[in-house]
């Protein structure tokens, strides 16, 4: 009995935090999405209305949702393309005693302020910025700039699980493939990638969800570009219930994504 109560004391506070602060907040967003606003005073009127969700299906908002998913997907794909060779290099090429240095090098940018990094990209992307003077052109603020900046920001979250995946793979599996006649490309496709898949998927959960909800980087380098996050921000003061409905969309997309990738075993890998 004593052990049970002490276990309860140990697990109680974090459980309370999880339920109240996380799930409670999510639930209240979802509930608020059914409320309406008084058009005259902008005050929130509790009730049950599907108007906000109906509003979401207007072309303007479908566009924003589609664009947000597209950007999140593009960022994720770019992160995979960069992280796989990068992780391979860190785990299999860099001498063992330099590996921790390589991991630190990947981690260090995470310690710098998110805002500083986003503004750094703004400075680089602007007319006459580093990109302009070095390559004679810049994509300017907008779609490409957002993808570029978000890819930069979330890349470590992809590199670390991919690196761990490579690290965990026994050398003998690669040797066995070569020994059985598998050329490097075959070994990569048939042995390395399937073994790495759970790690990559684990990384995509980070890059995809972080991109989906981002609004700061978008407002800094996105120009007039609207994403779900910026749309939430815009409606937050004027129409809180609609902002909640927009927020529910990104939560829903993430939920669907997690359900889809659960089968790969990636969730055991986080």
């Amino acid at each position, binding site marked *: 009995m004593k052990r049970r109560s002490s276990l309860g004391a140990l697990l109680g506070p974090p459980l309370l935090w999880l339920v109240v602060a996380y799930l409670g907040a999510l639930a209240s967003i979802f509930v608020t999405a059914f409320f309406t606003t008084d058009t005259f005073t902008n005050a929130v009127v509790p009730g049950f209305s599907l108007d906000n969700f109906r509003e979401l299906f207007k072309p303007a908002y479908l566009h924003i949702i589609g664009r947000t998913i597209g950007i999140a997907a593009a960022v994720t794909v770019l992160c995979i393309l960069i992280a796989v060779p990068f992780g391979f290099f860190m785990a299999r090429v860099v001498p063992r005693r330099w590996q921790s240095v390589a991991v630190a090098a990947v981690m260090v940018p995470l310690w710098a302020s998110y805002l500083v990094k986003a503004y750094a990209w703004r400075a680089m992307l602007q007319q006459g910025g580093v990109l302009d003077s070095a390559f004679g052109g810049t994509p300017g603020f907008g779609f490409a700039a957002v993808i570029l900046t978000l890819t930069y920001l979330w890349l470590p979250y992809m590199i670390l699980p991919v690196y761990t995946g490579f690290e965990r793979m*026994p050398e*003998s599996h690669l*040797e066995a*493939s*070569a*020994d*059985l006649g598998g050329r490097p490309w*075959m070994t990569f496709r048939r042995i390395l990638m399937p073994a790495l898949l759970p790690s990559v998927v684990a990384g995509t959960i980070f890059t995809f969800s972080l991109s989906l909800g981002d609004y700061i980087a978008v407002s800094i380098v996105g120009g007039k570009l609207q994403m779900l996050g910026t749309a939430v921000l815009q409606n937050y003061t004027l129409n809180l219930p609609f902002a909640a409905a927009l927020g529910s969309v990104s939560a829903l997309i993430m939920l669907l994504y997690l359900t889809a990738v659960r089968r790969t075993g990636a969730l055991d890998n986080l």
Partner: protein
Amino acid sequence: MTPTPAIRLSALRKEFPGHPPVVAVDSIDLDIAAGEFFSMLGPSGSGKTTVLRMIAGFEEPTSGTVELAGDDVTGLPPYRRDVNTVFQDYALFPHMSIQDNVEYGLLVKKVAKAEARRRAGQALEQVRLSDMGKRRPAQLSGGQRQRIALARALVNRPKVLLLDEPLGALDLKLREQMQVELKAIQREVGITFLFVTHDQEEALTLSDRIAVFNAGRIEQVGTAREVYEQPATDFVAGFVGTSNRITGAAARAVVGRDGSFGIRPEKLTVVRRGSSAGDGLAHAPGTLAEVVYAGPVTRYVVDLDAGSRVIALHQNDHQSIDADLQRGADVDIAWHPEHVIAVPESPVSH
């Protein structure tokens, strides 16, 4: 003209970088005949696995050449060499079924799917695991995984099969059973087996010939009988089986001349002082320091008066010697003079 050996190693040398560089394999010359069951025996770090890895193509030699069936394959990647390896950790692909694992080597070589399926079925039958095809490696026991690793290699019908301590992870009973199976499979398929082990008993049991490795060099190559009965160096005498080493003053007193000599414990007879051990035997006096009864054998530890300790091993068969020889008894040890072997010191210290 002698037939082309399945494997020929010439002046093979491997250094690993370091300060100074570590010489793992030091100028090895070796011919292994086609169809032979050949073992590389030695303690860990003696270079045997590195030699195997250079034959497979996982390591490039610092100098020297590897020939397979007369072709120089030095510098070729593993996938261009007609050898297959059974790994110490089996290295089965965890995300594939057993069937897919066994078919892998055939499919990457563009063998038709149906043909690959048929041959994989045969290979699984050969290792008596036909009904395991659909399972994943994680669902098999250690012994079963070992046999799958064997099937996955054999299905490619390589000229040479390389086995890197394949039985090391199995318990004793299973290991003995697998030894019998390995030997039977090798006889059946007639492929050259190159077997790496640190277990001298395993090497003696299985091999047509054995190379004894020490500190990156081969100390002796020979049949099990040769390596055991006529060890070329004191290292071989000590590593393959146990051996009584007799040197210095004891050598002068017992053997009659200076030098380093060895005699196997089972070649020594212990009798009560003064009683006759038999005709034509040499003998020396000593005191019985310990008697250890170990079931099929009894081990006698004798301190020779000439100043050396030897061990004698006796089969506990029907002509068992004097059962009431006790600790402290005055005894004679006796032996056939031809069983005393001169064992020169190894060229390398150990």
